[in-house]
């Protein structure tokens, strides 16, 4: 019955909370209870391949939190993220189509991705990732153009190790998904490009690869 005792205490705290007094004064329903669902036991032997995770999705942030890695909010644009790049290695996780681009990636890519994200959970959809603003703005207003080239350059320089993104279910004019076919069949262009940037130059030397040798997908 320990859980019930905790629930009762929590409800008492919520009941007398000033936030709820304010809500009721405004004629809104009080937040007087909590619905618990889901749950599991955290794996203590979690690998930590990333030093930083960027993303707004609760799952992304939760995984980072559980692994003891700093989770940062998604910046407004790639420029402001890249401007803050120092020696610190950045890892960017947003999302990949359900079913997994990783599973259809060309030979070699999958191993790389699996190494980068040993827990497949990190590859699950992140609906609130950087493409979300595109949904809110039917005209992309240069969003992809802002993110795309900057991300590819950063990937080519090895600034981050993993970028999973998606613009597939809403193809705004000029989006990355339409501008150029994916190099690998079934693989999203963004992911394909990022994988290519990391893959062809080898592990350590990919950091010094010249961005100029990497063709931008948007002309």
């Amino acid at each position, binding site marked *: 019955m320990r859980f019930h005792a905790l629930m009762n205490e929590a409800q008492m705290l919520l009941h007398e909370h000033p936030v709820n007094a304010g809500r009721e004064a405004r004629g809104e329903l009080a937040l007087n*209870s909590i619905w618990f669902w889901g749950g599991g036991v955290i794996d203590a032997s979690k690998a930590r391949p990333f030093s930083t995770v960027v993303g707004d999705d609760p799952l992304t942030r939760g995984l980072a939190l559980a692994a003891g890695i700093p989770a940062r909010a998604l910046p407004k644009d790639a420029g402001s993220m890249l401007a803050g790049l120092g020696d610190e290695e950045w890892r960017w996780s947003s999302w990949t189509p359900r079913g997994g681009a990783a599973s259809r990636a060309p030979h070699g890519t999958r191993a790389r991705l699996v190494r980068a994200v040993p827990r497949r959970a990190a590859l699950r959809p992140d609906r609130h990732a950087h493409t979300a603003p595109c949904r809110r703005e039917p005209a992309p207003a240069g969003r992809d153009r802002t993110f795309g080239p900057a991300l590819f350059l950063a990937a080519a320089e090895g600034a981050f190790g993993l970028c999973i993104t998606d613009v597939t279910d809403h193809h705004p004019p000029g989006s990355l998904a339409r501008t150029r076919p994916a190099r690998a069949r079934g693989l999203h262009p963004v992911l394909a490009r990022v994988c290519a940037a990391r893959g062809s130059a080898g592990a350590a030397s990919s950091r010094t690869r010249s961005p100029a040798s990497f063709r931008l997908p948007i002309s």
Partner: protein
Amino acid sequence: MHLRVSRDSLGLADTLEVSRAESEALVETLNRHFGPTMLFYPMRPARWYVRFDKAPELQTRRLPRRAGLRSMKSFHPDPTRCVFTRS
């Protein structure tokens, strides 16, 4: 969520507008009280994550999909079965 208990029924509303500030203020109070026993993370205003120091013996269910405040006839207080049961 909002829970309403009357003499012979139980109602809940889960489609509440919650601001980030409200959510964080509530969680701050809860966390100050419970500490690591039951630590909440307000990842989203209306969706929090919680970490227990000891895993509770719970079998939970997703919140039933329902809009507005409705009554739930059946309520099982036995935490080994579930938190709430749909009628």
